[in-house]
């Protein structure tokens, strides 16, 4: 079973992938909840356009999304240059850029899951909380958010899984630099491009499967615990 042992470089890719995916998921969560809430509850001019933009990464070729990120968030891109000069935040060819690319690609899945569960919340309960004296922010924090929790968990798991598998946009935006931007899929891709890399590719593939399974089991356990706590009829 010697062949199953990961080399230090492979470990770095695994750890980087997990770090990138967690950051991508956690950092996009507040915006994801906000956008999901707005799409589920508000009527406004341009709602269809917002919905379209959110879903764009799902239908565009990932390479196109990656290239668009490069144009806007690259060193010379309008947003990238602004962030670099004012805050010293650099995305291009850094792991942060990988996290951004993964977050953008996974965003539609997260928003969709959360939006569906916000739409399922019984608004009468929110009205009841209002008559008891809770102002709208309190209603959201104490009624809506807890009731939406299963959807948020589902959205985060989906987002995490999507981020773990993201390849096209990442490699286009931040390239494939070992130790900085080489995530699991990029590493697997690299292995398949060199002679004798089959074993490495297989090892990392197994690692991918294990991580995906763990994420799935964790989401199941969490969802079950939440719904038991909630006891919704």
């Amino acid at each position, binding site marked *: 079973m010697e062949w199953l042992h990961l080399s230090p470089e492979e470990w770095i890719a695994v750890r980087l992938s997990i770090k990138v995916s967690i950051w991508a998921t956690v950092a996009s969560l507040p915006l994801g909840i906000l956008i999901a809430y707005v799409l589920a509850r508000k009527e406004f001019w341009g709602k269809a356009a917002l919905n379209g933009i959110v879903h764009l990464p799902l239908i565009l070729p990932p390479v196109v999304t990656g290239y668009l990120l490069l144009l806007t968030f690259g060193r010379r891109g309008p947003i990238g240059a602004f962030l670099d000069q004012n805050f010293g935040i650099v995305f291009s060819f850094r792991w942060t850029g990988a996290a951004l690319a993964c977050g953008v690609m996974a965003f539609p899945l997260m928003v969709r899951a959360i939006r569906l569960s916000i739409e399922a919340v019984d608004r009468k309960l929110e009205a009841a*909380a209002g*008559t008891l*004296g809770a102002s709208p922010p*309190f209603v959201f924090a104490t009624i809506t958010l807890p009731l939406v929790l299963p959807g948020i968990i589902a959205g985060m798991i989906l987002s995490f899984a999507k981020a773990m598998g993201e390849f096209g946009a990442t490699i286009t935006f931040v390239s494939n630099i070992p130790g900085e931007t080489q995530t699991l899929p990029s590493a697997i891709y690299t292995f398949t491009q060199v002679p004798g890399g089959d074993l490495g590719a297989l090892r990392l593939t197994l690692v991918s499967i294990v991580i995906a399974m763990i994420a799935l089991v964790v989401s199941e356990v969490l969802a079950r615990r939440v719904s038991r706590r909630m006891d*919704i009829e």
Partner: protein
Amino acid sequence: MTLLVDIRHRLGSFELEAGFESSGRLTALFGTSGSGKTSLVNLIAGLIRPMQGRILVDGRVLVDTAKRIFVPMHRRRIGYVFQDARLFPHMTVSQNLRYGRFFTPAGERYAELDAVVDLLGIGHLLDRRPSLLSGGEKQRVAIGRALIASPKLILMDEPLASLDDARKAEIMPYIERLRDEARIPIVYVSHSVAEVARLATDIVMLAGGKVSASGPAQDILRRLDLLPAEERHQGGSLLEMIVAEHDTAFGMSVLRSPAGEIRIFGHDALVGSRVRVRIRANDVMVATQPPEGLSALNVLSGKVSQVREGPGMLSDVTIDCGGQPVIARITSRSARMLDLKPGQSAFAVIKTVSFDPDSTTRGITI
């Protein structure tokens, strides 16, 4: 407490145009479904913003469209008990009960958790989840939850409508206790004469989005012509009486009032306590002579004060029995044959079996 409502509001093709003022302990908004009752309480609660009008509770302006005032619902301090209890599913009963307390300024909390739990008999439910409660229990918790927020007014939108008769009977006494002991004014939406007759001190009658009558419960329920057709047979007079004695040999209670004595099947109220008796107009016979050799036990004597020709060849005869009016609904033919005229002495005859447990309740202590 005075509640003043004067609003106009349009919902689709339905136009609500309601004005009334009530200082009753329990004001019933009464009418058929679609008469605008629920819209009206939603307006009072602040769930809907009226297109035009004013709502004041105890002089405090909640809505005044002319002055562009609209107090949002969470600042109104008006409790709302919904038809479907709407307990928060992710909280225990205890957490549900305490929810509103958090938002009430400390100096304005008058409702004690323990006292409310006692009043509603929900002490054994505190650690449970709402999904494990029966319909009646849920509704009691919902009442408690509204109460513990220490509201200035409680709205109840048909809180018994989704419950079976046994559950209704379980909750009614708690609402009576709330009315008599908690001393919070209640606005109670209902389409049932039986419920309203038992609970209400005042009635606002709604029909087609307009107030068709409002005033003290006794006065309104006498107006059989105002009641919706399907509830008309439930209409009649409300008499305030005193329990005079219990006739244990026959399992009856004797009730006394200036109108005379009536006997009903055993009532558990103590001798000397006040009870309110509803006498359905359909259950009353009219005699011009003191009746003899009759199985009916209850004969009240008085003077005819009004004969009103009703629909369908029926006449409503009002007999003033010592200051309390008793209404009899008889055929117009009988009224004609007896030649009933105002001022003439008459006797109202009621069978004891026509009183069901629903029609006698403890009196409203004012």
